């Protein structure tokens, strides 16, 4: 691996390019969950769900956050809205420090920052008709009942539902329609930022595309900023302007969509991309796949150094001792790796060499 020398830091971490100024700035965000055990519920450990995340989201862009289960993507989304209290770090929304505001101010802020959940079955109250579900946030925020009801029809129409169906109950709708109801509710207070947490994962393929198109249209019409959290790389690539790849609570790579898919630099991004099956038989069968060994480490005891090193095919001793910082690799690309993969290179080509090197080192 002689040609693979650690890259010098080329420039201080740039602010993300986007369509506008940063609307959301997250700095060194940590969300840890205590593990308690025994009679006195003493704390015996800590789960590093979000472990030092720094990123910013530009107004009107879609930032995709991808990663496998347990990587902390959902916790990150909820920590930003303080649905889960972050342990430390800073979240600034339009310059205002979200983590320090009073409960009352937080409620007001939530009208600007909304969330859509994955499971449209679980996130809608089955005993309330759709009109009430969509009107609820407006009533909570002090709008009159008549004004709220008047707006519900408009919102249902905007998400492609018939306003006259507003007196029906959630169980009378299909999964895709229920997700539209969830989106209508999130739009009710005219937020500028919406956290979308796996919004299409529970939907059938033919319906998934409808909801994705709807989200894209709403974003254009209403100048929305999206934080789109998902595990499906094809969906994320389709909808995002920039993408953050998370692994074990940290960002492994952050790049604009084109760069991430054309020149992924992190070995984890490479393996993720190579693991996604493509619906094209010739292409799919011709691909060289990097099958990662092992499972995700326990986030209660993350590995020393780089958290990916236990599964990384090109890890060296350095990776076990020193944690690679997230640093700029080039315009629009940041990576947390001691040995970022160069454009045009494939992890597949590096692996046998690396394996040989490891074997040599052991002899």
């Amino acid at each position: 691996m002689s040609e693979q020398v650690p890259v010098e830091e080329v420039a201080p971490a740039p602010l993300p390019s986007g369509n506008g100024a940063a609307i959301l700035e997250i700095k060194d965000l940590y969300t840890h969950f205590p593990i308690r055990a025994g009679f006195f519920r003493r704390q015996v450990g800590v789960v590093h769900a979000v472990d030092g995340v720094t990123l910013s989201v530009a107004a009107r862009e879609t930032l995709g956050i991808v990663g496998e289960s347990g990587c902390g993507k959902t916790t990150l989304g909820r920590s930003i809205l303080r649905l889960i209290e972050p342990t430390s770090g800073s979240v600034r929304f339009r310059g205002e420090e979200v983590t320090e505001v009073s409960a009352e101010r937080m409620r007001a802020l939530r009208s600007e920052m909304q969330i859509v959940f994955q499971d449209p079955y679980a996130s809608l109250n089955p005993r309330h008709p759709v009109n009430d579900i969509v009107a609820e946030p407006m009533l909570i925020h002090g709008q009159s009942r008549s004004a709220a009801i008047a707006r519900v029809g408009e919102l249902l129409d905007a998400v492609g539902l018939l306003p006259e169906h507003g007196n029906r109950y959630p169980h009378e709708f299909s999964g895709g329609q229920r997700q539209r109801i969830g989106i209508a509710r999130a739009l009710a207070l005219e937020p500028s930022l919406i956290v979308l947490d796996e919004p299409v994962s529970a939907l059938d393929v033919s319906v998934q595309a409808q909801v994705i198109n709807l989200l894209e249209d709403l974003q254009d019409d209403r100048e929305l900023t999206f934080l789109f959290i998902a595990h499906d790389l094809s969906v994320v690539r389709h909808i995002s302007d920039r993408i953050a790849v998370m692994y074990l609570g940290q960002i492994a790579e952050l790049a604009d969509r084109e760069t991430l898919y054309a020149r992924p630099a992190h070995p984890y991004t490479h393996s993720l991309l190579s693991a996604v099956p493509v619906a094209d038989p010739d292409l799919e069968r011709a691909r060289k796949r990097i099958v990662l060994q092992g499972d995700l480490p326990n986030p209660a005891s993350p590995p020393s150094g780089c958290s990916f090193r236990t599964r990384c095919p090109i890890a060296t001793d350095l990776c076990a001792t020193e944690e690679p910082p997230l640093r700029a690799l080039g315009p629009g690309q940041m990576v947390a790796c001691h040995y970022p993969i160069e454009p045009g290179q494939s992890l597949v080509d590096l692996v046998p060499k690396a394996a040989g090197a490891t074997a040599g080192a052991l002899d």
Partner: protein
Amino acid sequence: MAVENLLTIDNLSVAFSTKRGYASAVRGLSFDVRPGESMAIVGESGSGKSVSALALLGLLPRSAQVTGSAIFEGEELIGMPADQMRSIRGERISMIFQDPMTAFNPVFTIGDQIGEIITTHDSSVSKKAAMGRAVDLLQTVGIPNADRRVNQYPHEFSGGMRQRAMIAMAIANRPTLLIADEPTTALDVTIQAQVMETLAEAQAETGAAMILITHDLGLVAGVADRVQVMYGGRVFERGVTRDVYYKPTNPYTRGLLQSIPRLDGERDHRLAPIPGTPPSILRMPAGCAFQPRCVFRTEVCADEPAELELVDEDHWSRCHNTASLPPLEVDAERVSQ
């Protein structure tokens, strides 16, 4: 046909009487599986893909009304007495389920459970020998430290490991047919890649045929020799995998392939969704099940169900308007290969 079929299904139907009415889940399904081949069944929720597999193995609740025929290695599976079915399940046909946690008994070790499968089907094998076989099998499916792992309980395995252990259990008696029902849907994409690789190796090692049931068109593209697309309890298209992907004939298949975002797709390409939602099995539309969502619908579609017809060599489609469908924009270079 030169090769004798391993499994021949003829006019299989499954219906349930429910409180909310009569639900017809599978309607007149006919297909065959050839020895050693991988046949994929693709469909969305409610298409009947899983129910048909469960019906084959007699795993549906008593309330299910199963009619039709399924001849496996010369024997009729539909209506087979339970004790006879038990000697086929796990021996000549094995099933791999989506959720391995429910397939394993939590109070027995993985080794006990694989060992039991072996000794049940061959009582001459000693318990010790069966345990030795279990270790070999776990090694085959790539579980590290198999000799130690064999004594662990299912909860001590991660999701991906459990799914591999289930594959080990499925191939323990060298079946001739594996039925994998959404085997990787509960798994992360990197773990999915591991499990699919293991499954392919297990199939190569035993020479078993496989029915892969999934909603994931990407998975199918990688492993299936033939594919059939189900919708509303019926097969809408069937053919060699390349033909179905590069020359999809049925409007539903076309819609499905166009609605998925692709990793290698064009930038800023707008998805082409299929309008509407899949039908409920309690309220099937009249005529063709897909007609309410179909952009090529004509009058006849709402009146009569279409038949599955041969459109090309080994390529079938169920549509009234096959002859008048506009040609598909395809990558000519790929099709001519």
